[in-house]
């Protein structure tokens, strides 16, 4: 079943590519749904271990436990409406688009599930190609520049990571690239070495996260992508730098993380605020969403670099949740574009009158994106910032300020689109649009109201990240013997 989560979209992608005519949309949607169903069974699935380069202890090792299954599931859920959107909205080379989306999903599943560092790297790079091609083939007029920028940013970081990946195994003397063998050995390295190795990983992850000031590819990426928004969702799902920190860099090199923590935490807090502030001043829907999503990445960053179990878990929860909320926003932006042929905010206004249902869903997703409790982003945002506050109250406050700015850009956006005098009427949600938005709404509610299931699984990973893989899982209620959080209040 673990392999199925990877193979179903892969095969589905190839089939969708090869299928002629309108049937390919159906094939693609079917594959996406099947992949989602397969992802549902992941928590109980068995790990996979296929040799690849045994001389170097590298193999296709997939482990569906922990945070992996949550992220695969969230991505699979977000992919259903995305594929549907692409099937409806992409008129030329539809098969290519659908195929790329699904292949991308397969690579992401591999990336999340990998429990072998080299396999992780392979999927990491392999996922780059479809997103690059989606932008290159289906992008806007200035896509060449965007592609080049995206590529340079992405590979500069990830090639450096490759050096760290090799060095961490060579220096630690681990038997293989498998997490369970690599982590105990790597954690024994001295802090300076760990710091350098961590820097190598950080080079890739910070760019992909992205953190200020290495984020400018993200803005161009979204601005130039296909107006349906489907490719943007793929890009959103591929914002996996945080996952890299969570699943690899921090658990392997905790002392290295500690060395770089001050810089990374600062950068993350600045990113959160910077993105949110910039989002308040955008006149273009896609740019606004890009900056907003940058701000979310900053919040994920402060959670990660708090290096607390709560912060790390919150960061992953937010990463999973924003796949749905940010993805939903981009799909909605595509619907807006379908109505007006433009992303310029001044082309819109007062649409709540002629399209009340669209307005309601938009508001719902906007609120989810800006972290209104009860909706998807809140639990992760809350826990990430909570963790960050244990590391630095000041930086947590800086990042928290982004929550206020998020309120500004969120309601601004809604006001610009839906309130005020109606510029020009439009039609309300069509049936297919309802079908596209339904999974998003369901996912947003699920993550918002009952994140416990996901949080539990993510927490397992966070515990490993903070305490190391060999520490036994504490029994129920066993945590009472020690203070649960790193606390500042010793006054008790």
């Amino acid at each position, binding site marked *: 079943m673990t392999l199925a989560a990877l193979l179903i979209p892969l095969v589905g992608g190839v089939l969708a590519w090869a299928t002629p005519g309108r049937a390919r949309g159906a094939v693609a949607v079917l594959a996406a749904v099947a992949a989602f169903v397969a992802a549902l069974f992941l928590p109980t699935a068995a790990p996979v271990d296929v040799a690849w380069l045994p001389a170097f202890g590298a193999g296709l090792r997939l482990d569906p436990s922990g945070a992996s299954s949550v992220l695969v599931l969230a991505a699979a859920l977000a992919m259903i409406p995305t594929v549907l959107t692409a099937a409806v909205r992409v008129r030329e080379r539809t098969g290519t688009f659908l195929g790329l989306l699904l292949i991308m999903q397969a690579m992401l599943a591999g990336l999340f599930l990998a429990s072998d560092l080299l396999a992780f790297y392979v999927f990491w790079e392999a996922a780059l190609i479809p997103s690059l091609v989606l932008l290159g083939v289906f992008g806007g007029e200035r896509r060449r520049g965007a592609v080049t*920028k995206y590529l*340079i940013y992405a590979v500069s970081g990830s090639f450096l990571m490759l050096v760290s990946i090799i060095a961490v195994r060579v220096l630690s003397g681990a038997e293989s690239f498998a997490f369970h063998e690599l982590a105990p050995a790597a954690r024994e390295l001295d802090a300076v070495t760990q710091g350098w190795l961590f820097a190598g990983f950080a080079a890739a992850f910070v760019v992909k996260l992205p953190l200020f*000031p*290495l984020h*400018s590819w993200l*803005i161009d990426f979204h601005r130039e992508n296909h107006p349906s928004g489907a490719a943007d969702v793929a890009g959103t799902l591929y914002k996996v730098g945080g996952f890299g920190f969570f699943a690899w860099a921090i658990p392997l090199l905790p002392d290295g993380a500690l060395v770089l923590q001050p810089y990374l935490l600062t950068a993350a807090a600045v990113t959160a605020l*910077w993105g949110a*502030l*910039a989002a*308040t*001043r955008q006149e273009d829907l896609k740019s606004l969403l890009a900056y907003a999503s940058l701000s979310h990445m900053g919040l994920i960053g402060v959670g990660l670099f708090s290096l*607390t*179990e*709560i912060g790390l*878990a919150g960061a992953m929860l937010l990463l999973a949740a924003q796949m749905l909320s940010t993805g939903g926003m981009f799909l909605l932006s595509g619907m807006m574009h379908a109505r007006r042929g433009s992303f310029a905010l001044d082309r819109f206004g*007062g649409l709540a009158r002629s399209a*009340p249902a669209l307005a309601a869903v938009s508001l719902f997703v906007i609120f989810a994106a800006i972290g*209104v*409790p*009860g909706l998807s982003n809140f*639990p992760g945002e*809350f*826990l990430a910032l*909570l*963790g960050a*506050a*244990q590391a630095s*109250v000041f930086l*947590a*406050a800086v990042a928290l300020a982004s*929550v*206020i*700015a*998020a*309120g*500004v850009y969120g*309601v*601004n956006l809604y*006001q610009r689109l*839906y*309130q*005020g*005098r109606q510029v020009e009427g439009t039609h309300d949600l069509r049936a297919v649009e309802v079908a596209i938005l339904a999974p998003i709404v369901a996912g947003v509610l699920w993550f918002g109201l*009952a*994140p*416990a299931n996901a*949080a*539990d699984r*993510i*927490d397992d990973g*966070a*515990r490993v990240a903070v305490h190391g893989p060999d520490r036994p899982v504490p029994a129920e209620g066993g945590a009472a013997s020690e*203070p*649960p*959080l790193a*606390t*500042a*209040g010793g*006054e*008790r």
Partner: protein
Amino acid sequence: MNDPAAWVALAPLLALAGALINGLAGRAMRAPRAGIVATAAVGAGFVLSLIALLALAGRDDRSVSVALWPYASVGGLDLSFGFLIDPLSVLMLTVVTGVGTLIHLFSIGYMRGDDGHARYFALLNLFVAAMTVLLLADGFVLLFVGWEGVGVASYLLIGFWYRTRANADAARKAFVMNRIGDAGFLMAMFLTAGAFGTLHIASVNEAAVGMAFGSATLGAIGVLLLIAAAGKSAQLPLQTWLPDAMAGPTPVSALIHAATMVTAGVYLIARTAPIFAMTPFASAVVAWIGAATALVAAIAAIAQTDVKKVLAYSTVSQLGFMFVAVGVGAYWVAIFHVFTHAFFKAALFLGAGSVIHALGGEQDLRRMGGLGAKMPITGLTALIATLAIAGVPLLSGFFSKDAILLHALTSTHLDGYGTTGLYGVLLLVAVLTAFYMFRWYHRVFAGRFRGDAKTFAAVHEAPATMTVPLVVLAAFSVGAGWLGLPAFAFPNVLQGWLEPATLGGLVSMPFDHPALWVEWLLLGVAVAAAGVGLGLGAWVYVARDGAPARRFGDGAVAAFARGGLGFDAAYRALFVGGAQGAADGVAVLDRDLVDRGLLGAGTALGTFGRAAAAIQTGRVRTYAATMFAALVILLLLLAWTGART
């Protein structure tokens, strides 16, 4: 669920169901039906609240916990959702659902003919759902869910008539101001979780009592909670959104921006009373913020010309009273004032709504007057509510306000933080309150009509769905105070009911107990304050027919007061401008510095590429020379390193 008190846990669900029905199917429903569904949903909640109230009243163990579902449990921090049904939450619930039901009922008449009425009732129900969650939550996180939920509902209702830009702007302002408070709330939770390892309110309260008295951590948490409360309850310096919030439909103002949501800040502090009980510093900040707000808002209220804005500033001012009460440690008194205020302020707002309705949307006090004759029920209920808020003895506002004054003076919790000053300010505000409320009533209902005659001729009393709530609210404006009579001489039900719920028997708040004659004297002073205020009003508006006010009204001072004492202007200049400037700066920097800067680096790479290609001259001899030079350098280097070793 065998416990009848626990049934009230269904109240949020009922309201949510109402919201969903109206939200999804409302457009298919005919005019009154959406309102009836919504009213029934809240009314059922009210019945459940009453049942819970009675069930708890009849026994000793007055605290029921209802576990809902595990929200998340991460890193040893358990964030399960659960409800706590205790005297404090139930009393508040009863007020919210009770007043809520009445206002829903009123809205059926008020919103008839508006094509968004289904949306209106859906949002109103959504608000009630969120508010009941807020009240029932046993943990900070669930409380925060309700907390932001009411903020969202409030945002949507303020901007209900979204086609007018000003309304949408007002809604946005309210939302952002609330978000600032929310950020404080979040930070308070972060510190709390860090200090105590839990966000379960009862556990936090218990743990707080175990900490050192006046500890810095508790002080910080307290101040942050105050920021949260100030945002929601429109206290300084976050008060400016509430007057603007009057852009929403008037029943909304009555329900959300007078009776219920804005008291959430008071509720929050009462709920976390032990934290404040352990830190006089934070309490003093609360109290003084409250006092300052009360004064500022009262002054602003005097100068308002909008029938609703007077009431809005009055609400801010009364909330300041409540903050003083929680600040000095008289938590039950604060809730008492919340309780009485809910009735008379709702009555006043609905009265205003009734008038606006009758005048076809007119809100300017300067074009009203003499309406009492045409609208006898509205006029009479408004009079009763006016007297109640002004502090006329035996009406509800008198008792609760007097209790606040008394406790402000006798608090020893705030020793060293100027309790006498607090008392003095509050007394002054009491005088001002009586004055501006007299002015308000007189300008609307007494004297002669100042608008055009045709409008006046069309004025008529509101339909029954609107007057019945008015009458009920007026009745409670009279009687609600009797639950909390001055304890030194009379039986006081409320104190015994609320005090265990707020302080939980963990700590007790110290107050001086002056001699009996002093207590009577203070009571007399309170009566006198109301008398002075009303008398002043009578002199200005009845005896001199408003002449002093007219002379004053055109001046700069009045304009300043009308503008909310310049807070808005200052914020626009300082923060809005500052934040926008910063955001503009960020947006520009992001493009020019970050983007172009890194692009520049990319261009530099291209230059390297050109350099690498430029050494290709194509000439054989150059290539040979390069090779030979490299060989010579290599040999020299080897000779050098060889010589060194």
